């Protein structure tokens, strides 16, 4: 290539006055193996330009945000896992508590194997119930007496026929 022409183009290039076509001439020159010694400092720069122009986005590029999807699913599954753990732990806690209450309920129950003892306990229970009933009946009778006393003070409506 014409050294003088290249030299002029280079000067023009560094000044920022070259056209795209002129820049392409320079590019071709620097990609060739016939570079003047004076131009060697710039060779790597033009090779860099070439390399940069050939850079491409990855072949599996898709506009579907794959990283995002994976991330979301991951986060979602973590949330579900956390929720499941909470439910499981709460369930276990409630079940344990319920079991303990049931146990406590029956903790004072005495098993009776003897018939006489059973009879005595039943009798005692019935007596207890009877006493309670008597108390209730007498209280109810008292209330009825009070109602009767109140009724005495309430005037009876006059018979319209009289």
């Amino acid at each position: 290539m014409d050294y003088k022409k290249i030299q002029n183009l280079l000067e023009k290039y560094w000044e920022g006055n070259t056209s795209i076509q002129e820049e392409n001439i320079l590019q071709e020159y620097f990609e060739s193996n016939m570079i003047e010694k004076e131009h060697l400092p710039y060779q790597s720069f033009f090779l860099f330009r070439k390399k940069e122009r050939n850079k491409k986005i990855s072949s599996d590029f898709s506009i579907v945000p794959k990283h995002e999807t994976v991330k979301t699913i991951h986060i979602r599954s973590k949330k579900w896992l956390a929720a499941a753990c909470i439910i499981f732990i709460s369930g276990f806690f409630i079940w344990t508590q319920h079991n303990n209450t049931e146990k406590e309920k029956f903790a004072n129950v005495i098993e009776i194997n003897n018939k006489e003892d059973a009879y005595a306990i039943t009798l005692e229970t019935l007596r207890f119930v009877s006493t309670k009933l008597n108390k209730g009946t007498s209280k109810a009778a008292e209330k009825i007496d009070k109602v009767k006393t109140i009724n005495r003070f309430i005037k009876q409506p006059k018979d319209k026929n009289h």
Partner: protein
Amino acid sequence: MNTKDFNHIIHRLKDSLFRFSLRIVGRSDEAEDVVQEVFIKLWQKKSEMGHIQNLDAMLMRMVKNLSIDKTRSKHRKTEEYDLIVEQKNNYSPSPERQTEAKDALEKVNMIISSLPQKQKIVFQLRDIEQKTYEEISDILNIPTNQVKVNLHRARKTIRQQLLKVHAYGL
């Protein structure tokens, strides 16, 4: 815009949008996220697309804004630059030469990465994406003369740094 049109736009622009975002965010995964987000937004607003005059410029602008937002949102370490030297030579270069070339490209990358944001963006759009000054002006919403000024400053810095690297190996 139907699915076919949309797929066509993706196919046509995904790589340049990716490269543009990568220049700003410095990480491939984040650049891909930006491109993905931009296409999702485009699909969501497909009914309004009929009124857009320059879709390419609009998408580039969206990528630029989202990428800058990403760099502001957190401190990130710039991804290690993966370099593969592609030469037209028929011979297979020695490991020493490969390492030298890799180092040289890495140095260029560092020089460009250290440019001010606006210069870096203008450089990317012109030197890598081969956009005209008018297209860059449209994408960045700045006057054409500002595009030229930024490009001139970027190239001037790059040249100075390249000469320094060549002379002192810095």
